[in-house]
């Protein structure tokens, strides 16, 4: 009851000193908004980048053949290396740490035609493993190239969603026939829309995918464009990449130390980079927010010093009738925590509103959806609590150490 009484007196104080209260609260509200929003946008950006990056595939390595740059076993430099499907199977077979390796043919400038609509795209000739490696998942009602397609060398095609849009508009595409450079193909699936921020030919949305062997025979490709692979989970990609050089070096007779003979795009390196980049960014944003909050806390501490001075006489009275230092200390810390909690709650509500509004703005494509994650919320509450305790402690300590005689005469 007594604490309630204190609080009600404190609330009255706050009401009579509207401007002062408002300014104090504003510091904390602004600080909270800064922490929450900066971190929310940071987390959103991180998740967005991760998702967008994984639009091309998770933990995959893309491998292209180049020319030798080191002489080896009597052969000079500049000898071109070419991949065949067998190279992918060899990697799959001979490296135990390999989860899966799969070949890819690419043909540029293929003419797709449906009725009057024509589209020039690049197509990839692939195996079913491609779907999982490259996250090319079908929309409802469709499917990706499957093993039966491979066995029978079917003329089926899986379309990127933008290609489908261009040729079919709203019309259903699965089950329809289109021609590919004049040859009829059956559409078995359309790509589920995805965010993809990197690619090595064009984005999957504007591509087509057909059976690898079909592409090879149709266009007379003997060589692959590239090989895709993914190391088993928990296997560091550096380790497996080294073995790839050894296995392919043996097969194609090049020096395994000749780094430039293959070009390798290890997306796990990007994962790592992104992790540290996001960590750095979030730390920066977090520290920025926390400092804003600390400035707010200093404001509160200042106001509390003023409150202590204004209520010196009250403190003296309480001491005269037996209040111990800790009673006074507790009272002022409680009041400070109350202001900080109130400011924090308002700031949180405010930030939540902004985040909600932001999720309706067309910014997701660039910076993702800002998210108030439990971690963000927890961190903010922790920082708020700490700022409140510190901002309360020093004025409260001053109050608790006042001299009773002097305070009574104040």
């Amino acid at each position, binding site marked *: 009851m007594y604490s309630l009484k204190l609080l009600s007196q404190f609330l009255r104080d706050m009401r009579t000193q509207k401007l002062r209260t408002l300014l104090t609260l504003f510091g904390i509200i602004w600080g909270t908004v800064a922490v929450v929003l900066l971190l929310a946008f940071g987390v959103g950006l991180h998740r967005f980048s991760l998702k967008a990056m994984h639009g091309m595939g998770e933990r995959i390595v893309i491998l292209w053949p180049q020319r030798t740059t080191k002489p080896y076993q009597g052969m000079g430099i500049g000898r071109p290396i070419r991949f065949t499907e067998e190279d992918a199977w060899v990697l799959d077979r001979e490296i135990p740490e390999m989860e899966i390796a799969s070949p890819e043919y690419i043909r540029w400038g293929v003419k797709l035609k449906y009725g009057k609509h024509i589209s020039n795209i690049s197509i990839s000739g692939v195996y079913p493993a491609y779907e999982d490696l490259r996250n090319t998942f079908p929309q409802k009602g469709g499917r990706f190239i499957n093993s039966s397609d491979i066995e029978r060398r079917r003329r089926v095609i899986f379309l990127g969603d933008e290609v489908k849009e261009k040729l079919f508009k709203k019309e259903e595409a699965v089950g329809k026939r289109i021609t590919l450079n004049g040859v009829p193909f059956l559409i078995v699936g359309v790509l589920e829309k995805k965010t993809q921020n990197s690619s090595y030919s064009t984005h999957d949305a504007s591509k087509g995918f057909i059976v690898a062997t079909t592409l090879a025979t149709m266009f007379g490709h003997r060589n692959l464009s590239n090989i895709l692979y993914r190391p088993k989970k928990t296997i560091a990609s550096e380790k497996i990449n080294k073995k790839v050089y050894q296995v392919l070096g043996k097969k194609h007779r090049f020096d395994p130390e000749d780094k430039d003979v293959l070009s390798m795009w290890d997306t796990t390196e990007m994962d790592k980079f992104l992790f540290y980049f996001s960590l750095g960014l979030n730390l920066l944003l977090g520290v920025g927010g926390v400092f804003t909050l600390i400035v707010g806390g200093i404001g509160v501490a200042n106001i509390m010093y003023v409150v202590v001075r204004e209520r010196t006489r009250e403190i003296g009275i309480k001491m*005269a*009738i*037996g*209040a*111990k230092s800790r009673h006074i200390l507790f009272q002022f810390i409680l009041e400070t925590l109350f202001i900080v909690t109130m400011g924090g709650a308002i700031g949180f509500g405010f930030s939540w509103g902004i985040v909600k509004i932001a999720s309706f703005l067309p910014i997701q494509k660039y910076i993702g959806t800002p998210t108030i994650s439990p971690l963000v919320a927890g961190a903010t509450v922790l920082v708020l609590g700490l700022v409140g305790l510190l901002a309360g402690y020093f004025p409260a300590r001053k109050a608790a150490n006042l001299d009773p005689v002097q305070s*009574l005469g104040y």
Partner: protein
Amino acid sequence: MIHLTDIKKIYKMGEVNVPALKGLTLTVKECEYIAILGPSGSGKSTLMHIMGCLDTPTEGHYQLEGRDVGSLNRNRLAEIRNEKIGFVFQSFNLLPYATALENVELPMIYGKMRAKERRRRAEELLALVGLGDRTRHRPTELSGGERQRVAIARALANDPTIILADEPTGNLDSRSGAEIIRLFNRLQEQAHTVIIVTHDVGIAEHAQRIVRLLDGVIVEDTNVNNLPQVQNLREVQKEEKI
């Protein structure tokens, strides 16, 4: 009960030492009714602060109920103030935002009394000082005399050994002042030790003993009327205590 032995209090004002009490010795017996009389600057307020454990002497010994309190720390002094001493101030010193009842309850809160008991006792004390119908009023809604009576009820809350009053009628008109003095007389009859600090001879004359203070020393110590000392009355009356 109170033994002040050679008490000195020296205030430091920058480089200069200002002595407020210059070796003062005083003994107050249980259930005495004393007025400490002196003009401003005589050291009477300093003496009251020391007797009230609000301040500690620079030199000398202060024994309260056989216990040396001159050397206790802040928190122990706060406990003694809470349990043994009831203050009545010239400017009432009530908490403005709290009702009369809550003001009287406050010392009992610090004394860790249970809420129910606390409330009951506060109501009884307010009835005792004639404010049984004013318990829900805030100080601003009460007259000066009523405020001082609330303050007296508060001073009695933890059944203190001494009641220390500092110019209790200083801010009151003569009629309210007279009521307050009657209340003190009654308290003394009910076996409380009452010490009134004042510069007003008229007030001091109500006490049994007048101690005159001038420039930090006692210049006169007289018994006004030869009422019998009520030595053990306090124990006798403990059962029928307010």
